[in-house]
């Protein structure tokens, strides 16, 4: 028997606390696979958010620092400016980056900080029970949009990749998803590219990952995966939004 796939060594033994069918688990795994494959375990420093992703230090066998909600890009900036030789990345949800942390994210991008932001977009605030996120779709029902998101009251969903592409400081921006095997493969490639580019000194990179949240979407796990394709991708098209040659 030849082993074709086993748990990455860089994932600790702890069981994930994520809900059944949650995209965070897939993304956590991809990050550790990539860091192991690029042999960056000794260099990687992760900035963990407030949100469902806040317990990364329980799962990642790399250095991790917790950040206050939304401040991840600023904390990552501080670390990278002290240790430019390390791989520094922040892991941020849609509240963390697109709501409270927009200024910090925007300006780290604008300064062209040589960091990577892993932006997990599941269109809802998971940890706190399913409230509207800046990336919640129009007409989407959440606990704070009980009759569906109304643009007049709550604005439109925010497209982070598109907005950040306008900034001269950004170097590589790609939107991917983890709702089916082919998408997961592409997502891993994007993460690997972003990290390799950081190692090569290419500047600010962001990988936006559309991720299913079955519990707060009030859907089954497969239904949630399908909804990413049927609804989210319409608003958040997949693909590369910027790739400065390096």
């Amino acid at each position: 028997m030849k082993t074709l796939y086993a748990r990455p060594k860089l994932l600790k033994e702890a069981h994930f606390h994520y809900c059944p069918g949650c995209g965070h688990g897939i993304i956590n795994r991809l990050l550790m696979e990539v860091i192991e494959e690029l042999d960056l375990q000794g260099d990687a420093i992760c900035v963990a958010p407030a949100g469902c992703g806040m317990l990364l230090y329980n799962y990642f066998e790399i250095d991790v620092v917790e950040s206050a909600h939304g401040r991840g890009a600023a904390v990552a900036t501080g670390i990278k400016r002290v240790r430019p030789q390390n791989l520094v990345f922040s892991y941020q949800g849609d509240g963390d980056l697109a709501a409270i942390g927009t200024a910090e994210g925007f300006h780290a991008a604008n300064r062209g900080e040589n960091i990577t932001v892993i932006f997990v977009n599941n269109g809802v605030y998971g940890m706190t029970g399913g409230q509207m996120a800046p990336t919640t779709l129009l007409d989407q029902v959440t606990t704070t949009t009980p009759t569906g998101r109304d643009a007049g009251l709550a604005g439109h969903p925010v497209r982070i990749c598109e907005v950040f592409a306008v900034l001269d400081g950004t170097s590589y921006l790609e939107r991917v998803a983890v709702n089916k095997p082919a998408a997961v493969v592409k997502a891993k490639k994007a993460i690997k590219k972003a990290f390799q580019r950081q190692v090569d000194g290419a500047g600010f990179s962001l990988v936006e990952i559309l991720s299913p949240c079955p519990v707060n979407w009030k859907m089954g796990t497969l239904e949630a995966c399908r909804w990413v394709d049927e609804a989210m991708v319409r608003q958040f098209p997949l693909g590369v939004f910027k790739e400065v040659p390096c």
Partner: protein
Amino acid sequence: MSGNAALAEAAVLSGCTHYFGYPITPQNEITEYMARRMPGAGGVFIQSESEIAAVNMVLGASAAGARSMTSSSGPGMSLKQEGISYLVADELPAVIVNMMRGGPGMGSIAGAQSDYFQATRGGGHGDYRTVVLAPASVPELTEIVPLAFDLADKYRSPVIILGDGILGQMMEPVDFDGLVRPPDYEKSWALTGARGRPAQAIYSLIFDVKLQEEKNWKLQRKFRLIEQDEVRYETHLVDDAEMIVVAYGIGARIAKGAIKRLREEGHKVGMIRPITLWPFPMKALREMAQTVRDFFVFELSAGQMVEDVRLALEGRGRVHFYGRPGGVVPMPVELYRIISRHYCQAHPDGDRKQR
């Protein structure tokens, strides 16, 4: 040199390698000085997009093992409170400078002492204190600033330097030759990448309340140690004093002028100038209260430190107060008149000139 420039220079000479700041009057000169000085000193300067971003950059830089600093004034310090709470909980060193101005709200841009409460009572959420150092002159910055970095590294906790707009702008001769660079502390806890060692994490979230309580008591033991070992204050003409003025920072400079006049009149007034506002010189005041009955608190505020004086005295003696909030700076003669009136009311007998 101006206080702002001297503070920045002292920081660089103390080993500060990373400065992050956002412009706000009356401390813009600190940010601007660092912009010019840091690159040549092999350090890093970033003008951040906000005070919130700056304190979080400090957190990141400190987590990675660097001596790092930010500076601001009242409104910006309010924005930093969350970050300070996280620095304390993460047990990370940092130096945060507040050059106070009139408040509350947008306030005025003139120097004042409006943020004593904010600085000494934690300021942010949670059970904590930060060391608060109050310089009273530009030359004193050559002692206060290295002390701030030293205490921050020694105790793995943020230290606030509580200056004010007057100190920031005033020009005095300053000699940096006497500045003693604090020693480097071993920082095995710093995040440098898990090479040749197990992965490390720096965080403050503890869901388990019993563990969170333990963490709190651990921090409290640290604070008790600081209270025991790091109180600093200066006394002036207290040996025969019958009334002791309590003032800090620029307030103490004004009070010294007032005391000079009072002494010329034969009024036996002295002063204690706390240098650490936290830990406050509780013991020193309590000892003074054994022989002195009247304490006159003077602040450029509506009255904040006066509460700590009352706490320290525990009902012994009488506490008088005079304050001017908003950025008004009274002249020594004004303070002299007020203290004189209180002094005479407190000591109606004996040969004293009445005014």
